[in-house]
């Protein structure tokens, strides 16, 4: 009875919170409309919401734009796939031994602190201006957080559990599958999530700096030719895509681990 009441109360409160959040976003949209409608801001800086929506529907019906989306999507998928496979394999191998962990962890952590965008021009030179350079760059940048998370996830499996498993079986594969991997998954998932964000941003950044196609190119091109409405429309598409994948990924994490 009393638990039901608290449940109702907390539900009502979360509805209220959602309402305030929605109101806040509507307020921002209203502000955007008002500021542009009364001409407080230059159209070059902030085009009106109507013009952005118009450009958005224009973009979405053009096959050129879908080609750009396709290039960016396939680049991200390939880069992320490379990063995850390499990161999980190397990280889990290093994480097996405390000594290897102590040796390699600071090296990888130090490398991740370097803004790797400074080597992008070189990758561009080696791999050409096509999608390959973005894939390589995204994969290198996304590899580090996966490897770091994987090595610390495997290194942090309590020694007690390993010993307990060893008393039950000598089958190392069984121990890995039933004990080590399940124990490592929560920490690994957060690394996979960071890696996705980093890979996504790297691919888009690469396309913005130098590319013939891709969503990043659409944004930077329209900024250069002063078509702010179209630029904002392309930004909206990227943001919508990022938010979609982000919410899908947070669904993968167990409830207690969610941010």
């Amino acid at each position, binding site marked *: 009875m009393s638990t039901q009441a608290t449940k109702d109360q907390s539900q009502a*409160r979360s509805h209220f*919170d959602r309402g*305030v*959040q929605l109101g*806040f976003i509507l307020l921002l949209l209203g502000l955007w409309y008002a500021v542009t409608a009364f001409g407080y801001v230059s159209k*070059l*800086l902030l085009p009106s919401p109507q013009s952005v929506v118009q450009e958005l529907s224009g973009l979405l019906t053009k096959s050129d734009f879908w080609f750009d989306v396709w290039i960016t999507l396939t680049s991200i998928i390939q880069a992320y796939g490379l990063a995850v496979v390499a990161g999980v394999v190397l990280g889990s191998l290093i994480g097996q031994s405390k*000594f290897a962990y*102590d*040796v*390699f962890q*600071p*090296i990888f*952590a*130090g490398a*991740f*602190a*370097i*803004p790797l*965008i*400074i*080597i*992008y*021009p*070189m990758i*561009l*030179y*080696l791999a050409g201006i096509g999608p390959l350079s973005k894939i390589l760059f995204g994969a290198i940048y996304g590899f580090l957080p996966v490897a770091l998370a994987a090595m610390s996830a495997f290194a942090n499996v309590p020694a007690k559990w390993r010993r307990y498993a060893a008393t039950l079986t000598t089958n190392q594969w069984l121990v890995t599958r039933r004990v080590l991997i399940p124990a490592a998954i929560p920490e690994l998932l957060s690394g996979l999530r960071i890696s996705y*964000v980093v890979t*996504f*941003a790297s691919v*888009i*950044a690469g396309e*913005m*700096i130098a590319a013939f196609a891709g969503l*990043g190119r659409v*944004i*930077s091109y329209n*900024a250069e030719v002063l078509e*702010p409405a179209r*630029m904002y429309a*392309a*930004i909206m598409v*990227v*943001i919508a895509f*990022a*938010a979609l994948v*982000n919410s899908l990924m947070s669904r993968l994490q167990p409830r207690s681990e969610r*941010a």
Partner: protein
Amino acid sequence: MTYPQKVWACRLLVCAALIGALEAGAHMIGAASDLLPPPSVVVADLPALLADPKVELAIFTLIKQLLIAFACSILFGALLGYGVAAWQRIERITLPIVLLVYSIPQITVLPVFVLCFGLGSGSKIAFGISHGIFPIALGVISGIQKSRANPIYLRWADSLGASRSQKLTAILLPQAVGSVCTGVRLSMATTLLGVLLADLYVSDNGVGYFIKFYTDTQQGPRLFGLVVILAMAAVIINSAVGRFERYAGRWML
């Protein structure tokens, strides 16, 4: 040899092996080594690179922009984090909005920053702040959440008759300090990334301009010299902030 010495020895060995592999690889490529020079050539060219007053100016400008952006990130990030998390009612409403904004790949709005703040230092500093502010804010938020999660310490302090300031310095801050310091360290790396991204995108006489210039003119030794300097600076700054994090950690509850 003690264990830490062994770890350090192996770590140096791994780094030496990597550099050796680069050296050997560059010599094997041979003719194309203009763009992929061996590390020895890069190091030999460093003094000449640093003697170029324009490069020197670019590096100093970058450091200045980085420090300004980092200071602003700490200030605004702490204010934002405190404003979001100080009251639980407000936190429940605003935190999802902050996380939503944080999940946007910020590189997409870089052209907007350039349009707003111009081609000079302004857009680089602003873009650095936009990258650096969130780790700090989230660190402060999770610090406040942690100190709120253990009310038992506060009740314990109350039972001993602690004053408000005593509770703040002995109970609340020590519980928050770990997450805040992690936020500061992450923020340093992201601020540097933000400043460099803007620098590469706009490239007017900054470090980004020289990176592009040396690539375009195939001056491999110069390009790698600059990359090595920046990478070393990033690693040194990161380990310095990491050391500060461990030092502050002793204060942790």
